């Protein structure tokens, strides 16, 4: 992995010159590749990208998100997904094709203020995102402590193959639901555990770009330094569903340290 070159950049910085492909948050100007965001630039064989460290969530099809019902019309719910576009959950998605606004009571399912997990079914430049809750583990969230982190920190919070979040969950006896949009819901056995998990998550957000973050999280959580990754997949706690995103966003993480 060390054929990848990394450096800190701000918008307008020249990352590289030559025949590279601009992948993410990079524009090509003549022969130069220019960063368009603040973040960590990576120059690899397949191209040049900038992993951003700030910015609001931009929806992508298939992303799993956590949203808040903020309103409804007679045909759909409006869902705040912490983005520049508010999402719609069509009533048909919940009631089926023969949904009738006159007969079916939408209030029976979701009310303003409810939190839901949903998948982005459709979104493009011309339309607001449409959600679906028709999948296992999607729908209303019954309990838990919510917090908001920058969507750019989500990959770091998940970690390599889920290593970071598993460390936090195990040490604090909690389940952590993470939406790609930066909304996080924590449930757990004890209030102390939840509090500690929230502290750890906040620490990941604030120090996402720094080296040795995993070590420091382990110190905070009082975990011995090198647990075997096999033990990480222990029995689920608390019963809350876990979002494992199919989106490639999870793969783009900000790992700086060389983990084994």
């Amino acid at each position, binding site marked *: 992995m060390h054929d990848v070159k990394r450096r800190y950049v701000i918008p307008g910085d020249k990352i590289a010159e030559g025949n590279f492909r601009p992948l993410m948050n990079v524009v090509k100007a003549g022969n130069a590749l220019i960063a368009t965001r603040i973040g960590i630039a990576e120059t690899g064989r397949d191209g040049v990208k900038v992993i951003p460290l700030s910015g609001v969530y931009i929806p992508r099809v298939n992303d799993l998100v956590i949203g*808040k019902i903020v309103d409804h019309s007679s045909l759909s719910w409006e869902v705040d997904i912490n983005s520049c576009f508010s999402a719609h959950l069509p009533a048909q998605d919940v009631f089926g094709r023969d949904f009738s606004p006159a007969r079916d009571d939408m209030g029976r399912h979701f009310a303003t203020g*409810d939190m839901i997990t949903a998948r982005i079914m459709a979104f493009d430049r011309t339309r607001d995102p449409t959600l679906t809750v028709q999948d296992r583990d999607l729908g209303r969230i019954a309990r838990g402590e919510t917090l908001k982190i920058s969507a750019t920190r989500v990959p770091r919070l998940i970690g390599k193959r889920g290593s970071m979040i598993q460390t936090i969950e195990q040490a604090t006896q909690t389940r952590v639901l993470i939406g790609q949009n930066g909304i996080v819901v924590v449930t757990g056995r004890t209030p102390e555990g939840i509090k500690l998990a929230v502290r750890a998550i906040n620490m990941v957000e604030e120090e996402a770009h720094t080296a040795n973050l995993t070590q420091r999280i382990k110190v905070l959580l009082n975990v011995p330094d090198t647990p075997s990754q096999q033990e990480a997949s222990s029995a689920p706690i608390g019963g809350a569903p876990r979002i494992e995103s199919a989106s490639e966003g999870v793969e783009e993480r900000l790992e700086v340290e060389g983990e084994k």
Partner: protein
Amino acid sequence: MSSSRRSTIIVEHLRKQAMWDSLAKGKRLDGRDFSQQRPLEIEIDVIKKANGSARVKLGDSEVIAGIKVSTGEPFEGLENKGALIVTAEVLPTASAHAEPGPPDEEVIELARVVDRGVRESEMIDLDQLALVPGKIVYTIFVDCSVLNADGNLFDATSYAVVASLLTGKLPILEMKDGKVVDTGKTRPMPVTTVPISITAARIGDHVLIDPSSEEEGCMDARITITTTDESFCAIQKGSTGAFTVEQLKKAAETARTKGKEVRAKLKELENNG
């Protein structure tokens, strides 16, 4: 025309439930007691072009107040008194819900409630501020800008106004050949007393002071009580819910005891300033 509306901030049910559970146990979600304010930070004299200024942080609510002294005609019926005008603006920087443009009813209420506390307490002795009685008087503008809004703008703004008046300098003006002349000298503002407002929110059966914006999103009713050392001088009940008389009496007592603490803190600024 004022019409009823929904709160601009919708607090999610999970958070509301957590808040209710926590309040039932006597604690707030941020760990505070019901009668505990968020950390209060005051920095004075931040705007050199003003005749007095203060930047107040109450938790994450942040307000800056600046004084501008000029002269003008007295108000009708108050010919021998100077004029004191308090304005407030919630800048569009303050939150995603704040919009530029003329102030809406909430912002106007904010300015008027803060103004009332200063005016009714007679904090500033306006009798000392007439230059030519009936014709020319000092006009003191205290303009407030909310930079970041996280609940209880009433108290944050009020403290900014009081702190800037306590530490401000009144330019000494004189009449020369029918014209107002600035002597270049200053004196302290003619302060007689220090009004302190304490705002409380009722959520269910609980009354808690200094609500954060999240708590305001859950509150049923709000009360702002301004006291001086001696008396109550201004009250404003707000929001759509109601209080029992007992709750109000208790809130009044809290406003007096907490008011004393904040007053002591503000008076320290005056002594150091």
